[in-house]
C-alpha cells in the first residue's frame, strides 16, 4: 500500500466534528492542496487527525497548525514523487542500455540489430516501466549483458541526481519549516507543541508501516 492510500490507516481517528474545526480561518488557508490521485476525504481525515492533537488552539496557533498539516502532507507527497522520479530515470537507463549494449559484444557493430536499437529499445523500456513480466524479462536480459538491476538503479540515481537533490532539498525545507511551526506553537503553548510532535510522529510511523 502506498501514499496516499496509506493515509487511510489513520482515518478512523478523525471524528466528523473535528473536520469542521477552524471554520473562521478556513477561507484564509486555501483549499486542500490535492494532486494526482489524492482525495479530499483523505486530506480532510489527515488534517482532522493532526488537528485533534491540540485542543483549543488560539488563532495564531491555528495558522501554524495548518502549516504542520500541509507540510506533513507535502512531505509524504514529495517522497512518493522522489520514488517516481527514480523510476523515470531507471526507464531512461534501461532504454539506453538496451540500445547501446549488445548481447554479443564480439559481433561487429554493423551486424547488430540497428532497427531494434532505434525503435525496439524505447518500446521495451516503456514495457519495463508498466509491465511486471516484461520487466523481469528485460532485467534478465540486461543482467546477461552485465547490468544487474542494482547497477541500473545506481546509474539512474547518478543521472537523476540533480533532480533528486532538488526533491531532497524541498523535503528538507518542508521539514525545517515544520520544525519552525512546532517552535512557534511551543512559544504560545508548550504542552500543545509536544503533543503535536508526538502525534505527527505516530501518524508518520503508521503510514510508513502501512506503506511497507
Amino acid at each position, binding site marked *: 500500500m502506498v501514499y496516499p492510500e496509506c493515509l487511510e490507516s489513520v482515518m478512523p481517528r478523525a471524528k466528523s466534528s473535528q473536520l469542521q474545526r477552524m471554520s473562521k480561518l478556513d477561507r484564509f488557508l486555501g483549499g486542500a*492542496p490535492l494532486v*494526482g490521485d489524492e482525495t479530499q476525504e483523505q486530506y480532510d481525515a489527515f488534517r482532522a487527525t493532526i488537528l485533534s492533537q491540540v485542543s483549543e488552539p488560539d488563532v495564531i496557533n491555528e*495558522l501554524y497548525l495548518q502549516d504542520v498539516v500541509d507540510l506533513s502532507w507535502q512531505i509524504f507527497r514529495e517522497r512518493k*514523487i522522489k520514488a517516481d522520479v527514480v523510476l523515470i530515470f531507471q526507464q531512461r537507463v534501461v532504454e539506453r542500455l538496451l540500445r547501446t549494449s549488445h548481447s554479443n559484444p564480439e559481433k561487429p557493430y554493423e551486424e547488430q540489430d540497428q532497427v531494434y536499437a532505434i525503435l525496439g529499445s524505447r518500446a521495451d523500456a516503456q514495457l519495463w516501466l508498466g509491465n511486471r513480466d516484461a520487466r523481469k524479462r528485460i532485467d534478465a536480459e540486461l543482467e546477461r549483458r552485465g547490468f544487474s538491476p542494482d547497477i541500473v538503479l545506481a546509474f539512474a540515481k547518478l543521472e537523476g541526481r540533480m533532480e533528486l537533490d532538488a526533491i531532497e532539498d524541498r523535503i528538507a525545507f518542508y521539514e525545517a519549516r515544520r520544525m519552525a511551526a512546532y517552535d512557534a506553537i511551543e512559544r504560545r503553548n508548550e504542552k500543545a507543541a509536544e503533543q503535536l510532535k508526538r502525534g505527527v510522529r505516530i501518524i508518520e510511523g503508521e503510514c510508513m508501516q502501512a506503506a511497507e
Partner: protein
Amino acid sequence: MASDRQIAANRKNAKKSTGPSSEAGKRRSSKNAVRHRLASSNSRFPKEIVELARLLSGAPKDADPTFVSIDAADAQMTLVEVKKMKTETLGRFLKGDRTCDDTHQMNEELRKLDRYEQRALRRRKRALKAF
C-alpha cells in the same frame, strides 16, 4: 558599421514600432510578461487581508486592524497563492506520462516559487512574533 542611409532607415522604421494603439491591445500587452503576481507590490486580496488581519489581531469588526496584522495577513495570502501554484505545478507533472525533462521543468518551476514562499514566510514570521 551601418551607413547613414541605414541608420536613417532604422530610425524611420522604429517610428512605426509603437506597440498596440487600441486600449484593449494596450491592456493585453501590459500583461505580456505576467506569469503570476507574486512579485507585485500591490495586494491582490485587500478585503480578505483586512478580514484576516482583524481575525489575527482580535480587533472588532468596525475597528482598523494594526499594521503588523495587515502585514501578517498579506504574507499569509501570498503563502496561500504559492501553495496553489505549487499544487498546479505538481498536478501538471503527475498528469500523464512523465519524462526526465518534465521532472526538470517541475523542479525549476517549484524552485522559482520557493523564492516567493521564503520571502512571505519571513514576513509572516516577523509579523506574527508581535502577537
